């Protein structure tokens, strides 16, 4: 998903609009809830776009809902790469995958109940998927493109999804895919695939979200302002391994000013800073000086890069692209990102399987770039003096990124000019092949922790006239075939193809289809009350509220 900040802004606008429709806080309506201690207060920069699991897509939303709406599978509650592992949630175990990767069968755990006490049935899974499609969940293509019959259901040609069959008596669930799709387990781990009772109406319920099965229950939603996550009183009895039982309820407050947010946490008026917003420089200084034992910088599965259009001069020349890779001063981008960027040269981020540990082709990623060598390479490529237009969004720090990149291109012998446009129109503009954007900034946040989710950014077989993700228009048969092969490997078996995934990452880097500058990082800042060490920072969903413990 492109432009997390854009999405958050859209979410904030959406929630602001929803204020007008708000009653005085629809409660979860999910039965009795309890709180051991607390609540702990989380200050968030923007409200979730929706707390309805089959509607919400922003990081603010999924951070809140992944522990409320468990699906058949979820992610391990662990830091770093371990946190990208798919584990069974409501399913009794990992699925049996047959028919060349097109048939998934699993069974529901016994004795599951929703937070309102309703027993969970296998058919609730079908209902959740159908509801996500009917409510036009923004990522519904992951369902409609891969589950047999889901597209027909979406188009109204079928009354149910033919590819899903369930047996409420035995809890058996079988899913037929249209073609092998390795990341399908990741798709099943989306909160949107979280089970909800089949009696839930097919309409968005952002202010009064339906009951789910998970450690938390959402309550007291004040749209755009606050909501609570109370401990699900029926959770402990379900004893699902690998998913912690929370010790404290969560109160989420929306506080759009990052400085005020930071002040509240630093002064212990709130307990957790929203990871979606970088700390302002003043607060970073204060956090490092006064709260170093409760402040750290955590990796996020996101990559920031400049695409280099391989279909037009000068970047149809490998030497020209390698010159850019050689000249990149990644240390400069770290500063422009206020320190919240880990420099790197690979398209796949460090915490994702497939990240390469080889040396970068252009030199040490923490270095300041070798302008003289790059200039020589440009001369030798015969592309010196050619004009290059660098595109970028006008929000900070991306605008400054573009300034820096354009100046670097000038320094190595090109004539760079900039096209900086509104963030809301930027991605649709450069995603049109007809725009012929020569170079430009892009950032990509994972849909799920799987290498092909990043590799597809240079997938030549996916190039389309509009909404194109391969901005570089890279057409490389090796990449295309490897993406196809890796894309068939079930997420649970990814560790068996690490070497192959790393080789692909290396290949992309050595051909410099994109000039990666690094990977975004996020602040982890808590109050004195919180057991900082125990708080897990999930690489998928950020701070894991189930591990938040008050001293």
């Amino acid at each position: 998903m492109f432009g997390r900040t854009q999405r958050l802004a859209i979410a904030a606008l959406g929630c602001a609009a929803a204020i007008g429709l708000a009653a005085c806080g629809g409660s979860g309506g999910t039965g009795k809830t309890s709180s051991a201690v607390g609540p702990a207060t989380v200050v968030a920069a923007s409200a979730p776009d929706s707390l309805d699991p089959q509607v919400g897509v922003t990081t603010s939303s999924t951070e809140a809902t992944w522990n409320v709406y468990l699906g058949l599978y979820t992610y391990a509650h662990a830091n770093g790469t371990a946190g990208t592992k798919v584990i069974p949630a409501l399913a009794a175990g990992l699925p049996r995958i047959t028919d060349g990767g097109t048939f998934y069968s699993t069974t529901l755990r016994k004795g599951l109940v929703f937070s309102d006490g309703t027993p969970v049935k296998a058919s609730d899974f079908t209902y959740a998927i159908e509801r996500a499609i009917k409510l036009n969940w923004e990522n519904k293509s992951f369902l409609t493109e891969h589950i047999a019959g889901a597209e027909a259901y979406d188009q109204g040609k079928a009354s149910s999804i033919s590819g899903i069959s369930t047996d409420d008596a035995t809890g058996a669930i079988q899913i037929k895919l249209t073609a092998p799709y390795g990341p399908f387990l990741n798709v099943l781990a989306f909160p949107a695939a979280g089970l909800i009772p089949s009696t839930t109406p097919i309409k968005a319920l952002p202010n009064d979200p339906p009951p789910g099965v998970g450690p938390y229950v959402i309550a007291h939603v004040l749209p755009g302002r606050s909501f609570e996550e109370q401990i699900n009183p029926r959770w402990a009895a379900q004893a699902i391994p690998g998913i912690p039982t929370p010790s404290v309820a969560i109160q989420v407050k929306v506080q759009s000013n990052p400085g005020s947010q930071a002040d509240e946490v630093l002064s212990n008026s709130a307990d957790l800073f929203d990871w979606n917003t970088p700390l302002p420089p003043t607060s970073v200084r204060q956090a490092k000086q006064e709260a170093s034992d409760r402040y750290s910088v955590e990796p996020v599965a996101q990559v920031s890069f400049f695409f280099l259009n391989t279909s037009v001069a000068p970047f149809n020349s490998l030497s020209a692209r390698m010159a850019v890779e050689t000249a990149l001063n990644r240390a400069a981008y770290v500063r422009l990102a206020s320190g919240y960027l880990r420099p790197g040269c690979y398209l796949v981020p460090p915490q994702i399987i497939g990240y390469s540990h080889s040396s970068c082709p252009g030199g040490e990623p923490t270095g300041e770039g070798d302008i003289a060598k790059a200039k020589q390479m440009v001369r030798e490529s015969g592309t010196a003096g050619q004009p290059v237009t660098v595109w970028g969004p006008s929000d900070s720090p991306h605008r400054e990124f573009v300034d820096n990149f354009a100046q670097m291109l000038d320094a190595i012998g090109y004539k760079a000019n900039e096209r900086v446009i509104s963030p809301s129109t930027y991605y649709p503009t450069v995603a049109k092949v007809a725009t012929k954007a020569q170079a430009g900034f892009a950032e990509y946040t994972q849909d799920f922790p799987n290498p092909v989710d990043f590799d597809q950014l240079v997938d030549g077989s996916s190039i389309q006239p509009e909404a194109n993700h391969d901005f570089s228009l890279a057409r490389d048969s090796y990449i295309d075939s490897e993406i196809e092969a890796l894309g068939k490997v079930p997420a649970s078996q990814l560790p068996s193809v690490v070497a192959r995934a790393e080789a692909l990452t290396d290949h992309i880097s050595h051909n410099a289809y994109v000039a990666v500058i690094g990977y975004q990082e996020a602040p982890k800042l808590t109050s004195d009350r919180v057991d900082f060490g125990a708080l897990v920072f999930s690489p998928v969903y950020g701070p894991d509220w189930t591990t938040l413990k008050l001293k």
Partner: protein
Amino acid sequence: MGQRGALRRLLHERSAVIAGAVLAAIVLACLLAPVYAGDIAHTGPDANHITEKITVSGKRLEVVSPTGVPTGPTWTGRFLLGADPNGRDVAVRLLYGGRNSLEIAAIATVLTIVLAVVVALLAGWFGGLLDTLLSRAMDLIWSYPVLLLGVALGVTLAVSGIDLGFATLRGGSLLLPALIIGVVYVPYMARPLRAQTIELRRREFIDAARQQGLSGLRIMLGEILPNLASSILVFTPLLLANAILLESGLSFLGAGVQAPAPSWGTMIAEGTRLMPEAIHLVLAPGLMLLAAVVSANVLAEAARDALDPRSQRLQVRPTAGGLDRGAPEGAQDGAPALIEGQAA
């Protein structure tokens, strides 16, 4: 009224002299930007030094800290007014930005004057259908808030540029904001000048010129235009001040000067992200903008008083979004009361 007398009165007005000196100093400093950049700061307006260190009073300082905060004023040749987030010298960019802002404002002012005079003469002299058409066109432009119109045009044209038939302006061209500003201010000057033209047309010396067999064009250029000169002179610094303000506003909103070219507006926009940690990023261009606009306005007021000491205060005043639309006392349709007698 003699022009020499007006100049003498202007030079006796202390505020006018100070304002003129300030404006001249700003213009001169901006014109000398390449000299300052090359011989004193030793860097260009777009050259970044983000990961470099400088020595100030024997101390090694990072131009931009690892958390992205640029160094403040060093009060030395290098980074006199500090650095921006990309490690560029603020003083150098301030002067180059001033060149861009003043260049745009000057071109826009000339364009406004030329278009406004043409519209006013044609509408005021010929009257009838032509007057109606031109006046309604002016009303149409007038009906939009200047800043909104400027932003709409600026954003639309920033990417694709504009094809004028005889020339094409690319998206990043400085002429584009100049063209936009020049056009949106035309009604503010054309309307009062048109009213003046209508009034002049009824004067006896115009009848005399007609009876001598002079053509309409010759009367317009030889008799009416010289009588509009005083108004044009008063309007010029006012338009300049407003053009600078509007250019800064448009650039601040991303619809004016396009990156990486600096302007005072873009510099302020870039600085707001790092408030208050790096307040120099906003203060330096903000103060420069203030000085330029205030001095141009003071000069305009003094020029009006000098050209027509008996006149009431002009009701045309600069505002943040454009010129005040109030009509001056004793003038029809917003015409300033600066009509002189027959041209010499």
